[in-house]
């Protein structure tokens, strides 16, 4: 019983740690930056093809996570 309580507390603290605005915004920012780099890099046409989807994903994510609590 106490083991279950410990597990759920651990899960809650992990969720509290990860589901905050700061780290989520950092992830979204990284995805946007990766998308823009993919759009302009001269090495792979495949990366260029996926750049728009990546940037869009990052931008949508940023818009959503900027509403998450601090």
């Amino acid at each position, binding site marked *: 019983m106490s083991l279950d309580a410990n597990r759920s507390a651990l899960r809650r603290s992990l969720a509290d740690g990860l589901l905050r605005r700061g780290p989520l915004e950092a992830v979204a920012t990284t995805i946007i930056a990766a998308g823009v780099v993919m759009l302009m890099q001269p090495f792979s*046409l495949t990366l260029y093809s996926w750049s728009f989807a990546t*940037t869009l994903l990052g*931008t949508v994510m940023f818009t959503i996570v900027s509403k998450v609590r601090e």
Partner: protein
Amino acid sequence: MNELSASSRIAYRAAMVRPGVARRIRGLSDRTLAWLFITPTIVLLLAINIFPLLWTIYLSFTNYRANRPNAPVIWLGADWYQSILTDPDVWAAMQVTAHFVIWTVVIETVIGFGLAFLIDKKFRGHGIWTTIILLPMMLSPAVVGNFWTFLYQPQIGLFNYVVAFFTGRDASSFQMLGDVKLSPWAIVIVDVWMWTPYVMLICLAGLRSIPDYIYEAAEVDRASKWRQFWSITLPMALPFIMLAVLFRGIENFKMFDMVNLLTGGGPGSTTEVASITLKRAAFESWRTGYSSAFAIILFVSVFGLANIYVKALNKVKSR
């Protein structure tokens, strides 16, 4: 006399207002009044910002051509997006844009920060030098584009003569705007000349925000000037430098006017940045649907970068 007549006019108008109307206006809540005041702004914003954006998104999924408004509009789905994102020519335009953005931002940041560092020393006559350095930024891009076209003239241009003076080459032996290898650098030089002062201003704001007592404490600890620069000046000015980098990056990503005036994307397509490709597709080939999709791709990229910019701005503000 005038005041009297004005006040009497107001009193007359107040007397003419029907009591019912006056009561109705007085009875409005603060919230309703606030909405009443901001509604025109919201309507204007919807009309000139949101509606064109939504309309462009719609057009990007169709075969619409602006020069054939009566032709039947067919829904194409994401065909234009697929076409743009697999087109090697558009990819090449993106690489030209990348060359332009990366080199202008790097050179502007290095020179701008260096100038800000010097101006911050407050030497004799620093005010007049600041004004002189800021002059290019105050000019219109159209003016800058035109007079740099003259400066780059191989026969009469001052730029070629200066290069010839320092290198010993014949002034008319090279063309900055007509040469495939030199033209991408020609547009970089003009942008650096014009926008370095802007980066300098932002960096100067960063340098002036560093409190003197930190340097005084470093002096007490006998830190060298070099150590002070790397441990105090650079880290504390970094958010401002980042702001300048992001701002110039976003601006140059959508650069159109200056490049269009200087080279028009030529020779060939060596200076064809993304916005020039977009203009050609929209107003020379009249592929409105295709160019709308391209505009949306560029918009999403700039919007994403703007999000990072706002985040950096908030970081600077919180300092």
